[in-house]
């Protein structure tokens, strides 16, 4: 189980991660979606005890990352988005080195390594030097490495990035197998449909803030029941923000990057939508346009990640 509480990371004035709160139950696969630079890798680095948070904390299986980093390290298998390999090491030796680094005995390692290589379909490549393996093979080998100490929690940062379609399918199959083994998996991608297929829940992160979270079904239902609305305003953006914030059917209100429009999710009937627009005009909110966006899963991600959530 992973519990993240008010996790914040700042670099000077730049906030990479802003009060992230998240709970991932044991045995679930949680997909973390966001654009490049949204804060996914920062979150993963903090959870992997590679980066200290500015404030807030997180627990891995009840162990605090700040107070018990050593215990946390033994409970997680971490795969970074970019990683290198040692030249002149064979695939077997690569896994053997990391097995030894986790304190696994030689006899156990010699039993474990063939099983792991089989899991990631690299048995044939066991005596190949790691630096000559293809990118997909290196990714799979790195996944095998992250499993060598049988961790309960896997933190996988964009494991399928840069892979060709076949390698992506292979990676997805391996992850399904790991899910069946009862691992808690936190996985990131900037491609939402890719994660939707294999995740129980997903969270969408943008500019360091979690802007949407829930099970894949919940989010899909929400999409069907909710509309993404964009309101363009003529000045007085803040007054409009205050107005829409008070509307009970409005959620995920955000200012858009253009600085003159707002976006929000509206959960209500057409009549209620008309009534809200009437009320806005009665309150002298200078609305230039008020439009509903047709959405699919990818569109929602694109639209949500354009703005910064205010509520």
């Amino acid at each position, binding site marked *: 189980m992973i519990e993240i509480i008010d996790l914040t990371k700042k670099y000077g004035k730049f906030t990479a991660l802003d009060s992230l709160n998240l709970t991932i139950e044991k045995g679930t696969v949680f997909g973390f979606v966001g654009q490049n630079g949204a804060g996914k890798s920062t979150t993963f680095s903090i959870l992997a005890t590679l980066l200290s948070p500015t404030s807030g904390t997180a627990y891995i299986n009840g162990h605090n990352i*700040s107070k018990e980093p050593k215990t946390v390290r033994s409970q997680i298998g971490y795969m970074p988005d970019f990683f290198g*390999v*040692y030249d*002149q090491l064979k695939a077997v*030796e690569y896994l053997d080195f990391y097995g030894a*680094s986790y304190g696994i005995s030689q006899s156990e390692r010699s039993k474990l390594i063939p099983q792991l290589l089989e899991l990631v379909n690299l048995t044939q490549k066991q005596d190949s030097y790691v630096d000559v393996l293809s990118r997909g093979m290196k990714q799979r080998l790195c996944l095998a490495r992250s499993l060598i100490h049988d961790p309960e929690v896997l933190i996988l940062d964009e494991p399928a990035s840069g892979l060709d379609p076949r390698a992506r399918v292979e990676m997805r199959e391996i992850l399904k197998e790991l899910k069946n083994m009862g691992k808690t998996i936190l996985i990131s991608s900037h491609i939402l449909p890719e994660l939707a297929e294999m995740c129980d829940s997903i969270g969408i992160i943008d500019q360091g803030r979690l802007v949407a979270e829930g099970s894949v079904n919940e989010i899909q239902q929400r999409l069907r029941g909710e509309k993404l609305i964009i309101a363009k305003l003529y000045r007085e953006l803040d007054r409009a923000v205050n107005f829409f914030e008070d509307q009970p059917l409005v959620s995920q209100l955000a200012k858009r990057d253009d600085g003159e429009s707002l976006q929000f999710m509206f959960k209500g009937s057409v009549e209620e939508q008309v009534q809200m627009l009437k009320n806005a005009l009665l309150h002298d909110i200078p609305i230039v346009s008020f439009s509903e966006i047709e959405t699919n899963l990818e569109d929602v991600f694109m639209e949500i990640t354009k703005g910064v959530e205010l509520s």
Partner: protein
Amino acid sequence: MRNLLLNPVLNKEFKLRFRSFKGFLGLAFYLLALSILIIGFIYLDTRNSPMGLFRPDQSRSMFMMLSFIQMGLILFITPGLTAGVISGEREKQTLNILLTTNQSSTSIILGKLISSVSFLLLMIVASMPIYSIVFLFGGISPGQVVTILGYYIFTIFAFGSIGIFFSTLIRRTIIAMISTYGVTLFLTAGTAFLYAISMSVNQMGMATNNPVPYFFAMLNPMMNLLGFLEPDAFRELSSQSGVGIDFPLWAAYLISYTIIFLVMLMISIRKLRPNMKVRSKE
């Protein structure tokens, strides 16, 4: 000690370092060069000698020459071997994965230090039989050879720790390398230059019982080597110059570099992984 022998980083580095044939070829060339130097020295000396003899005092001179060459080699190579070990892993993007394993920071740093200087140690140890040629002609005792070997090993680890320190603190290898060479240059040429200046101040009678030259000499590995090889000459020079400290220079060297070694390693160990404790500023 058992933990050190079972150190996975050390084992892996040994495997990588000694796997390639190039390393052994380099070692063979080094030993060949050293042999040619010795044979050349003996040849020239016997040729220029009226009796065609190689006397014990000449054997001693040859030993001193070899010792200084080896020390120069150590001071030149050690920064290059150590200043990239951590920053290099960072640049190759292998450090993050290593840091998420159960290996302690101490184990990683010690494994890296020992493995990075292991080839140099091998070179030094492998050259010992060639060194032993001096025993054929006298002038040097086996004890002196062993002392010099110990002194080399100590110096390698002391200067290696400086390389590890910069490699851990500085993200880029090239900067870490420049910083390590800079410090090494100061501790060798810099301290010798400052020693010469402060000695001349003493000899001009501008200061009496001024211990400053002693402190510079204490930090200089070449001067300490000279102190080992010619203790009487060095002692006389110090007494004439009004340094006013009778504590053995080699002991001061051992103490000061042990402190440097420990401090460098402790900082490296502490800084290898981030301090996960939240520093509340708000």
